């Protein structure tokens, strides 16, 4: 048991921090909720930050730490699937990587665009294809998610089959989502804490009212544990750990998203405050991979058969 960061991990996170600094605050944006930066994406690729899992002394925990850190940025980056799932399938697959469940391909797909690699994970196997424009239907412009999303119009006849256990890919997918959710939860909480500490009513900061303090403190508890469960799941590679980590993260997201906008009052309804960038990503993550119930069933199966 060693829960402190090692030197390599500290160093990698420091590098990511430095690289991400210019992207730490959100520019005013009013056309849709999704905020992306090609520049940030290119810098991450160039510096190899999405490939740390394969580096022996770094491994999956470091990859999860990087994913979590990037998820705290106001800009959405396709890092989780690339950093934590792609190495299992084929490290050379072109990004962005879009993971979809076989038989559940009609929902909004994060980062789907022409040239993206769509990975279809089903019980029978793991297959992929490079998406072309005719396989993609755009989401409506004012879609209420802070990820870029689009829809698949169908799956091509011919896909590349990958020699990898689909259960293992699903496990890594859960870890990837749990790590990303942990970062989103952390950033959302931090932004609410700042706001309610500054905003005054009745002559005192909103954060001095216990009605809010206790709910925020509970949010801290589930946010903190979402982090630890995600890291543990990355470290152990255990399927029960992965399912519990994502179940807990999806529970946490459901618990806090509504509260956070509530606490911001009118500002929580605007695009002016960046809170939605994290909460409206979390909202989409709560549905992925079948949502909490599916994670619960997977965890129960792994724990007790």
């Amino acid at each position, binding site marked *: 048991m060693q829960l402190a960061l090692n030197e390599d991990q500290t160093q990698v996170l420091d590098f990511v921090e430095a690289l991400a600094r210019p992207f730490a605050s959100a520019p005013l944006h009013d056309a849709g909720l999704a905020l992306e930066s090609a520049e940030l994406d290119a810098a991450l690729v160039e510096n190899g930050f999405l490939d740390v899992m394969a580096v022996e002394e770094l491994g999956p925990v470091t990859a999860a730490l990087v994913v979590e850190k990037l998820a705290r940025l106001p800009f959405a980056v396709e890092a989780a699937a690339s950093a934590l799932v792609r190495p299992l399938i084929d490290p050379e697959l072109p990004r962005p990587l879009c993971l979809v469940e076989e038989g559940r391909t009609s929902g909004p797909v994060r980062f789907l665009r022409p040239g993206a690699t769509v990975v279809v994970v089903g019980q029978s196997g793991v297959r992929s294809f490079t998406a072309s424009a005719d396989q993609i239907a755009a989401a409506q412009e004012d879609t209420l998610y802070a990820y870029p999303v689009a829809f698949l119009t169908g799956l091509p006849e011919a896909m590349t089959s990958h020699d990898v256990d689909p259960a293992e890919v699903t496990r890594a997918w859960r870890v990837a989502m749990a790590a990303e959710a942990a970062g989103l939860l952390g950033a959302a909480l931090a932004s609410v804490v700042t706001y309610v500490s500054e905003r005054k009513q009745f002559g005192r900061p909103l954060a*001095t009212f216990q009605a809010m303090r206790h709910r925020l403190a509970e949010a801290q508890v589930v946010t903190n544990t979402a982090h630890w469960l995600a890291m*543990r799941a990355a470290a152990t590679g255990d399927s029960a750990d992965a399912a519990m980590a994502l179940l807990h993260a999806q529970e946490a997201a459901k618990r806090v998203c509504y509260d956070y906008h509530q606490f911001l009052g009118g500002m929580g309804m605007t695009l002016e405050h960046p809170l939605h960038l994290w909460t409206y990503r979390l909202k989409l993550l709560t549905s992925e991979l079948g949502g909490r119930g599916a994670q619960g069933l*997977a965890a129960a199966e792994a724990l007790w058969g």
Partner: protein
Amino acid sequence: MQFEWTEEQDAFRHKIRDFLHAQLPEGWEKFSEHGPASPALTAFARGFCEKLAEVGLLFPHWPKEMGGEGLGPWEQQILSEEMWIAGEPRGGQYMNVNWIGPTLEKYGTAEQKARYLEPITRGESLWCQGFSEPDAGSDLASLRTRAVLKDGHYVINGQKIWTSYAGLADTCFLLTRTSDDRKKGITIVLVPMDTPGITVRQIPSLIGEGDIHEVFFDDVTVPETARFGEEGQAWEIVAYSLRNERLGIPRFTLARAALDRAVMMLKDRGDFTREYVRIEAARCAALCEAAGTANYAVVQKRVDGLAIGAESSSARYATVMAERAVCEFVVEFLPEALAGASPYLKMHHQRGIVAGVAAGSAEIQLNIIASDVLELPREPR
């Protein structure tokens, strides 16, 4: 960052399990239904702790200067986990080895160390903690039990409540007021429980026989040498003690073990096929594991010699969430467990409902998290 135990730590855990397997009597599970403070379990614990001492498992985490083996906080954690899962066969003596011993070593006079440490190391003594009062619960610093120094003796008058183990303890680690200066006016006195003027009344409770008491002090007189530390030093000393025992009991381990037990019972009768039961069980397991990792993050800080702050309150609240979920799961899907079908699950339920009250209420933990983890501006007082 890695989440595996070392080979030595695994071996240590197995040593404890083997010992428990060999030493716990037939029918222990039914026996452990008696609360940890019951006369039956207290009497059992005396013999049991003597045997623990013989094989070096009573206080292996104490430094070598104190006769321990100098094992670290992880080993203390492992020891606590295995004992608590087994129903805490040490009874109230877990307090001795977790914090009373180390606190005596740091703040005690030579006379106090000579008198109290050895019985602890032999597994013979039982302490109680005279902290809460009828009007001083969460607001502990408002306590009023008064100790007045007169002719070389403290004369103590007042009342304590919710005191665990008081009915059978030899000594009380008692917080008294020696001046009106709120926290700075509180002084610790070590009071033998057979001192004239002490009356103990058991409070019938939901959490097991003999667990909580009222203790009345009427002109209880002890020599000045019974004072522990200086007058007004109690708050500092208690803070030190809590650093040794900040996380308290590793309740999440019993909650998880109880959940596993409940699932096995449901499986045996073919009831673990319903999806909503399985999902709810998984949610409970995730909460137990969540509490576990939060607790371990605090232990890691102890290992690294870092100051432990409000993150321990966060870990404790995570534990409360887990305990609550498992208690509710059992009641919802295995109601017969609390009516005789499972002594183990009944024992867990009785101990589980205490999680958010004992050693600082859950709401106080939330206050601490709000102020010291989230650093929200403080509430006006």
